[in-house]
Structures are given as C-alpha cells and as structure tokens.
C-alpha cells in the first residue's frame, strides 16, 4: 500500500543503466519507481521497484545505490547529513530499505537512488504531523502536606502519562511568598530521576544547602526559611513523551516549619489492628509524615509463618497514615509489621540514622540496613 509519495522529484534523467558497485543493474522497463510502503505489521519501508530481478548487485552495494536522508530543512538536499540507519533486502527486482527506527511524524525524508556518478533520482516523503492532544496533567505532588520542614529533602511529582526526559529543571520552579524565583534550589541531576514508567519524577532539594558545614550552605544558605510560604510551580510548557504540552500548569503552595533532625520512631506509631474474620484495614498513624514512595515499598505485614499478607496499601492524611486492605479476610493470630530501617521522613532522616549524624556524639563503622518488626495480634471478632 502506498501511503505517501509527495514531492516526487526527478533529479536526473533516468539512464538505461543503474550502477551498483561496478555491477550494473539494467532498468529494462525504464520505469524504476521509489515508494514508501507499509508492511502488515505497520512498519514503513522505502522501496525501489522496477529493477532487473536478475541483477540484484551485491549486498554491500545496496547502501551505495539507495540511501534515505532525514530532511530538517525543506530547502536542503539532506545529503550533507548522515544517511538514515536501517537494513536492506533485495527480492524480485525490488530493493527495500527498512529504517532502524519508525519514521518521525512532521519530518520529511529524501530517498535517493544513485546511478552513474552525479546522477540521482530522488523522491521526498513528508510524514504528516500527528495531532497532539494536551491531556497529560500533574496528578499529585508529594509530600502532600501544606506545612513542610525547613530541611525538606525531596518532592515526587506524579503525572497522568509518561513525560519527556531532559527538561525537568527548566519546567520546575520554586517561588517565595513574593512570587520571586528561588535560585538553584534543586540538585540538578543530568540523569533525571524518573520511575520506570516515566510518570513519576523525584526532585531532590540540593543537599549542599541542607547539610550543615558544607560550602553551598555556608555561602548561600538553606533553600527554605522557617515561617515563609513557598510555591512549587510546574510549567505547562513541559511536554509529555508524545510531545504534547501539559494541559495546565500546576502549583503547590506550602509553609515552612522548623528543621527536623530526628529519626522516625516505629515504637511511637499508633497501630490499629483489625478484627479477625474481617477485611478491615490494618492502619498505622505516624507522629510526623513519612516519605510517600518509601511507605509503599519498605513497610509490609507477615503472618506467623513469615508469609506476606497481600493487599492494597494506602497512604493518606498527608503521609501520616498507612493502611493495608487485605485481599482476603484476616485470620486471627499473631502478625508482624515489617519495617526496613532505611524508611525516611520528609527530611531524609532514616529509622537507622538521621540525615546528618553528629560524629561527636555517634560513630558507626558499618552500614547495616536492617529490617525491624513490630508484633500485633488479630483477635477473633467479639460476638
């Protein structure tokens, strides 16, 4: 099926002989044609038809005879840039070139058949632009609370669809209460910290402006001031992975409270055990908000046999509450809440150690990431 053959151009008179690395291919009919076709699997390839089936030339010569170029500028020949990478097949007088990657909507390609030196037959194909729908949006930012500690370590930005990579810091700003942009608040990593789906971005506040005694903090000071209001602003110029801008800008406003240098204490968490035979949630309430992503990964429940209780985890109330809705009813018995010690709060204080350790007070020689546990009992339901 021919899907595009715009701007067909004959750049030279078609001679009777088309040279291919010293092995001439006779154009018997004089009707060599260059086309762009789709295979049943949807892939597109360029083909030269009408060649003499008996004279395929040698494989090494196909790339010399027929090349495809990406055209950025419609006035240029495209030839000054490298040819498009791909593979060739010659069959029944048809030479096919399949690009290694799908053709790009909105770009043009110049397919060029070279015969004797200086003679070329060219066909240009414009791939129609796709209509981009601005449907992607920011669906959440964590921490979700509207009061955050001065030594806040990171934000998680959740999007409804996969985003483009490489523009995160151009499209994310922190504004103070006067609406002024806070300069250099983030750790601008070249490898942006996306989840595997491209829907969640982690942005760290520059740790050099949190850590005590390091240069950036000494010279410029911390990013946040206690008592001030700030807004994290996400621009609608940011494009999703398909190339469409976000549907709307996003703003999260919050107030800054005093720095938090204490490790979370699992013994202080309020645990509400469900009743046996029910599918009530097991719920935990923390004394201060914990890290949204880590709460999904580093807390779980096991039964006495050490089997994990499967279910849906919910993190709510400004990351102060964690609950597990089991897939099946709770059997009465003893359970253990399992906690990885690297679970952090909003300032990066882990259960195993605070974000910063004052080595005058505490020195550890080894790093042991532990799993802690807290026992609880699911009692039979009272009748």
């Amino acid at each position: 099926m021919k899907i595009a053959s715009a701007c067909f151009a004959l750049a030279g008179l078609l001679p009777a002989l088309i040279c291919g690395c010293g092995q001439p291919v006779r154009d018997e009919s004089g009707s060599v044609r260059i086309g762009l076709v789709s295979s049943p699997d949807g892939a597109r390839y360029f083909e030269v038809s009408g060649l003499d089936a008996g004279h395929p030339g040698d494989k090494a010569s196909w790339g010399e005879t027929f090349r495809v170029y990406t055209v950025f500028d419609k006035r240029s020949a495209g030839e000054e840039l490298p040819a498009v990478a791909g593979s060739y097949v010659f069959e029944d007088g048809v030479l096919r070139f399949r690009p290694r990657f799908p053709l790009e909507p909105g770009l043009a390609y110049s397919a060029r058949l070279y015969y004797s030196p200086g003679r070329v037959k060219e066909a240009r194909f414009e791939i129609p632009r796709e209509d981009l729908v601005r449907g992607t949006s920011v669906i959440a930012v964590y921490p979700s609370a509207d009061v955050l500690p001065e030594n806040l370590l990171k934000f998680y930005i959740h999007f409804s669809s996969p985003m483009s990579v490489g523009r995160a810091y151009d499209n994310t700003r922190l504004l103070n209460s006067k609406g002024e942009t806070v300069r250099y608040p983030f750790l601008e990593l070249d490898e942006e910290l996306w989840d595997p789906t491209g829907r969640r971005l982690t942005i760290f506040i520059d740790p050099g402006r949190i850590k005590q005694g390091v240069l950036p903090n000494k010279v410029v000071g911390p990013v946040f001031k206690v008592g001030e209001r700030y807004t994290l602003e996400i621009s609608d110029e940011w494009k999703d992975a398909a190339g469409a801008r976000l549907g709307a800008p996003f703003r999260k406003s919050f107030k800054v409270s005093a720095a938090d240098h204490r490790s979370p204490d699992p013994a202080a968490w309020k645990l509400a055990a469900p009743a046996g035979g029910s599918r009530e949630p097991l719920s935990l309430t923390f004394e201060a908000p914990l890290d949204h992503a880590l709460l999904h990964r580093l807390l779980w429940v096991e039964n006495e046999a050490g089997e994990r209780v499967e279910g849906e985890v919910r993190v709510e109330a400004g990351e102060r509450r964690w609950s597990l809705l089991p897939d099946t009813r709770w059997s009465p018995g003893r359970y253990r809440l399992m906690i990885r010690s690297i679970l952090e709060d909003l300032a990066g204080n882990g259960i195993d150690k605070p974000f910063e350790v004052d080595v005058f007070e505490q020195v550890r020689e080894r790093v042991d990431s532990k799993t802690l546990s807290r026992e609880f009992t699911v009692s039979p339901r009272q009748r």
Partner: protein
Amino acid sequence: MKVKLLVSMALSAMLFLGLNPAAAADLTAGMKTVKLELKSAGPVAFGPEGILFVADPLAATVHAVATGDTAAAKKKKVVSLEGVDRKIAAALGTSPDKIRISDLAVNPASGVAYLSVARGSGVAAPAVIVTVRGDHLESLDLSSLKSASFALSSVPDAKATTGRGRRRESARTQAITDLGYVNGRVLVAGMSNEEFSSSLRSIPFPFAGSGKPASVEIYHGAHGRFETRSPVRTFVSLNVAGQPYLVAAYQCTPLVTIPLSDIKPGAKLKGKTVAELGNRNRPLDMIVYTKDGKEYMLIANSSRGIMKVSTIDLEKSPGITERVSGGGRKGVPYETIEGWKGILQLDRADDHNALVMRETEGGSFNLETLPLP
C-alpha cells in the same frame, strides 16, 4: 537539551594501576552473541581488549560489549564533528530535540569515540551506541557483537519487590552516575530515586555468575563534625603515594579520595575531602593524564569551567578539616583552563589530547579534539 555528563576512565585505570596486559588476555572468552538490546544507555567506559562497558540504568544492568575494535590504528583519525546532535538525529531518522546524548568514551586502541544515545523523548526511548571515527558517524549493531551482562541486584528493597505472589512493579530506579573499569573490576556509582542513598559497587570482571557486588555507602564528613550519605557524581582512579585510590566528586561538590582497597562489601566509607569545588557548581566529568612527566587531573564543571589539578597536590593534601569561608573554595590548588568553555563531556583521546563535547552558543553540540593543557 540537558545531557548527562559522565566520565569514562578505563585508560587511566590501565595506566595508573599498572594493569598487566598478560592477565588481561581472554577477557571476552566467556562472552556470547545474544542480540543485546539496551533498555537505556547511561555512562559508558572502555576496558581492555576493546571492551565497552555500558550502564543500562532502566534494566539495572551493566553490559560488557566486545566491540572488536581492538587493532591499534597506525594513524588514528582525529575525532571532530560539528553539530553531532543534528547528525546523530539525522542518522536515527528523527529531529535533534528527540535525542539525548548521555555519555562518550574513546576507545584507547583505535581512537574511535563511542556515544550512548537515547532516541526519543520518554524514559522508554530506545537506546543506541553511536561511533564516531574521524568525522564519520555510524550506529553500532549490538546484535552481532559478543557481550556479557551483570544485573545490579540486591537493591535495598529486595523483600518488597521480589517476594512471593502479586507485586506491583517497583517504582524505584537506580540512576547510574558513573562507571569505570579499574584493575579487573567494574566500579559503578549510583543514586536512588527514592531513599537518599549512595552506592558504589565493585564488580569483578569477567563478571562472576552469582557473585554479589561489593556495595558500599559513601559518606561525606563535613569538616569533622557532621556526616551524611553522599552520592558520587563522577570518579577516576589514580595512584596516591603508591596506592591505588579513587578520586570522586560528590553531587554537592566536595572532591574526595578513597583507597580502592577499602571498597569492600557492606563497608562504610568516608572519603577524605581534598577540595570543595565551589558553590552552585556541579562536577561533570574527570580524566587523569600525564604531561611533561607530571600527572594531572581535569575536572569539567557545570559553572566553574575546567579545573586542572596536580595529583601531587592530592597526595600532599592533609584534607579539609576546617570550614571553608569567604571565597568559597578550599583544599588543593587548581588552575582554571581558559578557552575550554561549555564542555559537557570529556574523555582522554590519547596521551596528548582530550575529546570533548561542547555546547555552542546556538545550542547545538560539537565533538572536538583538544590538546591536553
């Protein structure tokens, strides 16, 4: 376009750790042709025998690829390519804004540059290795080359993501900020997109089938008082007072030295801070070289240009133990190399030259071979 700016350091490893060429034989013997497909391509570095190490952060894997590019060229072609981003985009059939160049490494045997490139906008964009020989650009066909891969397992969420029964896919990824081949081991520095961690893995090469990598955490001791975990941005290896060391730049700018012999599984390492590279600055890339019998280190930075440091000064440095005040930098002295502006990527091209990727005023990228300062 943001680009990832990482270093490769294989050559310095061979030069400064006195790698025995006889012991390096047959490193590709256990490799297989497996039609390798990259899920992503981050930092790249060369080892001996034309082996290219490619970090694949999305797959949490390091690949070793036998490029076969081993013959020492009699006359190496000087790599020079204007508008490399535009040319790579054209070869991959797309526009320059839809490619991302992550890193580059020069094969010391042939002088050919290898670039890791993502073709597309999203996280799942296909990854490609592009070679540049002189001014000729080609995409490397990984499917026909022998390779070996090593999964970076034992991430600190093993229980949560690999247990029994139904699991939702973990959202945790480990960004790989640098990798390098040092004295028979592949060192991989990384940081997580969730917990504030720092990890440095030391993987024996050829990859041991089930061997767990040595995983260490790097700490930053701020002037002897506070210590925190510190992700490594980029590193090189060199000999300090006759001992092999890693010189690492942290994300928050201190430059530290760590004895290689300390990198053992589960170890807690605290680097000796020998310099602070300055405020509002990110270290990008480092290389080590010798000129006129003296050894130097070049550090590419995001806002403070290229710094040249004598490694003798690193040896002599007592370490920073006091607060840095006023001027904003302290520790080993350095020289800023004028004229090397806009350098985003850096590797040694040969004994006398560096290959750099430079951003032009028009926002495109050039590959240039520059004499080592």
